């Protein structure tokens, strides 16, 4: 019960009133980010990261993670009321959430969505509380080869679990690695891919990439539709909350199943978006009346919201214990950790107890705070969405520019950010996944250095990656993940099904 003692210690860290203030500010900003198109968890946190440089790391991570929870809650509001998913992981929520709003049951749908998000997050935080110290303790015995194997598994999982064409996942990922390699090589001191320019010596900062890819790219996509928001308005009364809550316990098995799906896909980097879709699909398959799904079935709101929030939360587990983020937003927070001078990984649990347990304790509290805030302030957020896009868009672009500039106080970064925006727009339209690109950009140097360290240890002998059962089984799993699309294709062929590769990915 070490975890319990540590958790109580963590709540002690939270007793500092400033931390509570940062938490509330974070949640409110997060909901705003989640509601606005073009601002999401990843680039919202990236833009606000420079503001935290002067804070203590604990206060900073509490605020940034609260922004993330807020963004997860905020996505549901736009999905239900406007049929516009504020975040990719709330796409599945629109399937049943918006029909409910059209039937005049928006208050029920929102209450169900918020409650499910809350329960999903809570279950995931419990998993983190008890699993994280175990994983961290285990990872203390890791050498460079084991770390590289885990990183390999992370990236191969994208290929195996992604819905996109495996070739496109690989291309996006290796593009990230290539961009990460630009600049000064930290081992030999050689310049790589700078082509004689001074500007490229710093390399490409992933924060710039995140702000451009997710911020500008999303604005361009939204603009393409020539948006006019026409949504339902609603207020949530105590009575409707009570009426919905009475109905929710029936779905306890949906909650457990969705939270399990969410935690699994959050820890292995599948992320919140596939988790929400998978959970929606499972709920429909196991439902007694699958025909009602898509027409305003409350279970169709419960399942994806629970899974998305569980996945979003549990994505922080590998980030804290192994230094490998489970989602782009977790990757940005990992970048923050490095900037604040903390080395993510198992040693964090020994050297920075206040930081780790303060963060975990804050997850409990900020989800309660976030839940209460969104339940009471829905009309406010709905009215923000009624501000025309021609006002919101330039303001968001200005914020993206400021965010890109403040990372290094370099004007060139703003220009690079705009280019990443165009890449993001093209990639999204052609179904290239952005998450592996961002994660490769973040982890590129780390993966390369653990690879080179292992190569130095083994004198260039690749067999170090299956030299003992631990590293061997991780690498084996990684290979299964990498060739999973091929394996399923062969299985389909053997069954006589026509599993043909089609452009755009299947």
């Amino acid at each position: 019960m070490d975890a319990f003692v540590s958790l109580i210690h963590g709540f002690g860290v939270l007793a500092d009133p400033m931390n509570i203030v940062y938490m509330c500010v974070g949640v409110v900003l997060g909901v705003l980010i989640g509601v606005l198109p073009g601002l999401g968890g990843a680039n919202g946190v990236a833009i606000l990261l420079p503001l935290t440089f002067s804070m203590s790391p604990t206060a900073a991570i509490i605020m940034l993670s609260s922004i993330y929870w807020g963004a997860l809650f905020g996505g549901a509001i736009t999905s239900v009321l406007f049929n516009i998913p504020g975040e990719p992981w709330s796409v599945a929520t629109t399937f049943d959430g918006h029909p409910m709003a059209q039937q005049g049951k928006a208050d029920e749908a929102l209450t169900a969505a918020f409650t499910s998000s809350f329960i999903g997050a809570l279950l995931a935080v419990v998993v983190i509380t008890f699993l994280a110290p175990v994983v961290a303790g285990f990872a203390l015995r890791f050498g460079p080869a084991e770390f590289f194997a885990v990183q390999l598994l992370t990236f191969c999982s994208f290929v195996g679990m992604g819905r996109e064409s495996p070739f496109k996942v690989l291309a996006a990922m290796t593009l990230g690695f290539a961009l990460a390699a630009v600049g000064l090589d930290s081992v030999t001191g050689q310049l790589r891919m700078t082509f004689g320019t001074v500007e490229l010596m710093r390399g490409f900062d992933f924060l710039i990439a995140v702000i451009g890819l997710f911020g500008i790219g999303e604005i361009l996509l939204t603009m393409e539709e020539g948006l006019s928001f026409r949504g339902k308005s609603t207020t949530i009364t105590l009575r409707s909350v009570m009426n919905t809550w009475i109905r929710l316990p029936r779905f306890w098995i949906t909650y457990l199943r969705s939270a399990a799906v969410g935690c699994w896909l959050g820890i292995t980097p599948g992320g919140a978006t596939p988790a929400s879709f998978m959970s929606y699909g499972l709920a429909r398959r196991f439902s007694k009346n699958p025909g009602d799904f898509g027409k305003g079935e409350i279970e169709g709101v419960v399942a994806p919201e629970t899974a998305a929030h569980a996945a979003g939360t549990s994505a922080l587990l590998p980030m804290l214990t192994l230094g490998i983020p489970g989602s782009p937003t977790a990757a940005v927070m990992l970048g923050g950790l490095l900037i604040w001078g903390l080395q993510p990984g198992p040693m964090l649990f020994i050297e920075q107890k206040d930081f780790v347990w303060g963060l975990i304790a804050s997850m409990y509290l900020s989800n309660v705070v976030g839940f209460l805030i969104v339940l009471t302030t829905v009309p406010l957020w709905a009215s923000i969405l009624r501000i025309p896009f021609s006002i919101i868009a330039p303001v968001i672009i200005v914020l993206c520019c400021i965010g890109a500039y403040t990372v290094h106080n370099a004007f060139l970064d703003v220009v690079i950010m705009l280019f990443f925006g165009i890449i993001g727009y093209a990639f999204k339209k052609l179904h290239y996944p952005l998450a592996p690109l961002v994660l490769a950009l973040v982890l590129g140097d780390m993966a390369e250095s653990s690879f080179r360290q292992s190569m130095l240890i083994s004198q260039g002998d690749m067999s170090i990656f299956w030299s003992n059962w631990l590293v061997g089984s991780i690498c084996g799993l990684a290979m299964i993940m990498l060739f999973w699309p091929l394996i399923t294709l062969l299985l389909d062929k053997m069954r006589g099904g026509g599993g043909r590769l089609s452009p755009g990915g299947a």
Partner: protein
Amino acid sequence: MFMEREQNLVPEKLAGEGEEAASANEAGLTVTMKTMELVVAGLLMLVAAIVMYDSVRVGAGWAFDGPQAGYFPFFIGLILFGASAATFAINLFSRTADLSSFVTKPALLLVAKVLAPTAVYLIVMYYVGIYIASALYICFFMMWLGKYSIRKAAPVGIAIPLILFWLFEIAFLIPLPKGPLEAALGF
């Protein structure tokens, strides 16, 4: 199936369940998805070639003390090249290639209407600082794309840079690019 729907993430969803938009697009057809797939895969192959070329330049082999600086990036470039070549080939030879429009003309126009002023905004920012440039940019955007009168656009355009100025320069002490006007005011 719900799985396929995930591919139509945010944008297509808005167009009203995606594919039916394609038929309406024929009048404003620009380039097909297939062409764009080929262009992007080709560009990625070019990037991969550059990566491999430069890795060989710094040394992609084995030095006496371990792998050379180009060892890891070379293999990254190789995978990028292979994966993009596969995407290229699939789109070139597949009979199921997506011949629908990558972007319709009106949509492309809207995207250009955002990109062009943003590019100008960056140039202006370089000379007069971020606050003045943002004020002009927000006003212009609102008047041009939102068809607002200057009496409505100006207050928004002035208020937002002022809030940002307070937030960054005064509250958080983070300096942003400033120009002659701020200098004249003593910042």
